[in-house]
């Protein structure tokens, strides 16, 4: 039986800027079971990265996690951890890797030392043992000549190799949760595929859970058990991978599928473009965040936040289209 590892409840994150308060995440709730892979999908600015960083408590000024947001890791609220507990949590219980491995690695330290650092921080082992483990990890993530690479600096490695080093650091202490924030976006397709395969393999070996943040539905299809689609700071639809890919309920999810051409299909159709641009989160629109771009937008969508509807087990979508028959007769839902 699967057990819940992480539960996020009503997460809200704001950023104070000169232009006003950006409501980057506006009430996100989801849970993650042990051994499960959840993909957070959405376009830039939808709040998916901020959600991930909140779990690691990596939201810094001017950003703020609004009080009342709960991030329960094995039942304990990460938001209430003190510095010491956080230091033990990060890098051991949960690890995160980012899109730009060069910016995440320290350019003045050899890659080996950076892996050793993480091992020594969380374990009482000798430097020698730590080094042996680091070399073993480098080998595991598919880096040839690990003894040689151990002594090299990040700039001496290629982009794919650097991401492998990041993964080695992340898995150094058997984390229960790995957050991968666009881990392959900066990489070529052939390398991307290898990295995704590596993450899958290590996840199984270490029995870890994964939150994968990406905008690439192809990557999602290959790795995710469950998918949450974010738009304008909220989750508009979530469900199993097959729910999202074959039985999408929210117009945004459907539009995302139709907007990308397929490499395995003969072209010909015009791509379905989504008119307009994502909402401004300083002044988020009233009602449904997608209302300005939705083909099916009704009057009520501009006034009220759509209720979350259940479609079978674990499949939810927030859209008025699915509650039409439940609205009162005089409800103003039709267009003028």
């Amino acid at each position: 039986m699967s057990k819940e590892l992480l539960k996020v409840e009503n997460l809200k994150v704001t950023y104070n800027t000169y232009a006003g308060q950006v409501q980057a995440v506006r009430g996100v709730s989801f849970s993650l079971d042990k051994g499960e892979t959840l993909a957070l999908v959405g376009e830039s600015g939808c709040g998916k990265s901020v959600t991930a960083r909140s779990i690691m408590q990596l939201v810094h000024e001017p950003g703020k996690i609004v009080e009342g947001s709960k991030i329960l890791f094995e039942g304990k609220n990460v938001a209430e951890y003190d510095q010491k507990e956080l230091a033990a949590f990060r890098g051991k219980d949960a690890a995160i890797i980012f899109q730009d491995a060069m910016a995440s690695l320290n350019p003045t330290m050899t890659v080996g030392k950076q892996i050793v650092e993480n091992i020594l921080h969380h374990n009482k082992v000798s430097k020698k043992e730590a080094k042996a483990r680091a070399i073993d990890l480098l080998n595991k993530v598919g880096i040839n000549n690990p003894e040689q690479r151990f002594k090299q600096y990040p700039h001496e490695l290629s982009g794919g190799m650097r991401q492998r080093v990041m993964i080695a650091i992340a898995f150094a202490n058997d984390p229960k949760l790995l957050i991968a924030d666009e881990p392959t976006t900066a990489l070529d397709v052939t390398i991307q595929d290898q990295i995704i395969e590596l993450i899958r393999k290590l996840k199984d070996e270490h029995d870890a859970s994964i939150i994968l943040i990406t905008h690439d539905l192809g990557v999602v299809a290959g790795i995710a058990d469950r998918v949450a689609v974010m738009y304008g700071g909220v989750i508009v639809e979530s469900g199993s991978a097959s729910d999202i890919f074959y039985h999408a309920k929210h117009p945004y999810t459907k539009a995302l599928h139709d907007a990308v051409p397929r490499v395995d299909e003969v072209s010909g159709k015009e791509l379905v473009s989504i008119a307009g641009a994502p909402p401004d989160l300083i002044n988020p629109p009233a009602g449904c965040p997608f209302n300005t771009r939705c083909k099916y937008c009704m009057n009520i969508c501009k006034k009220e936040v759509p209720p979350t509807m259940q479609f079978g087990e674990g499949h939810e979508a927030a859209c008025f289209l699915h509650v039409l028959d439940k609205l009162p007769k005089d409800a103003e839902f039709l267009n003028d």
Partner: protein
Amino acid sequence: MEKDVLFEVKHLKKYFKLENKKILKAVDDVSFTIRKGETLGLVGESGCGKTTTGRTCIGMYDRTEGEILYKGRDISTYKGKDLKNLRKEIQMIFQDPYASLDPRMTVAEIVAEGLDIHKMYKTKEERMERVYELLGLVNLNKEHAGRFIHEFSGGQRQRIGIARALAVNPEFLILDEPISALDVSIQAQVVNLLMKLQKEIGLTYLFIAHDLAMVRHISDKVAVMNQGRIVEMNETNAVFDNPQHAYTKALLASIPIPDPEKEKVRRSKLLY
């Protein structure tokens, strides 16, 4: 009847001299032809030489060797008035809409710069009318003309870049990763616009990209580049459905398919 060849590259080479006296063969003996009104997709991974090919084609880099023929005539033989005219007919659109538009110019100034240089209007009113027309063509409106670039999103900026290129009535566009900096929903907007313009104005494209799915969608012919050479070139569907070269096969096999069932099948065949 076959359409006329508009652009042709024969045995193009571009070598860069490096500090240590080594030579980097960025483009090494590349040949292709593009017919009028068609799109050639040039694909490959980063560092394969596709961008250098595009830039050498438009003369941003001096070629090391080879021929670049536009309408049957080598572009190096265009001089004076002809050259100025050539620069109208071939335009380029870049990947990064943040870096390729001047932040201190208004949208109208950016779009009209080509018009100014080539003196393509008689009165100021005519100039602004043409700017509005161009903005309309790329689905922007009049009110945008007086604004600065920082006020626009990535997709809007890329459309401004397209309007700028179209201002001088080009026949041939070199598009260097025109959509890779954009979100998927916005990519579709730009690609649909490019395809619509091609249909309506009869533009010819050299479409440089690493996104194979998008290249399949937009191109008539595809050339696959690896390490400075074209390893395979054919009609689009032939390349994708029946790839011949080992590199093309490997490249195609590594693309994830947004369909969990098909993706499971593909993953089961992976060798790594």
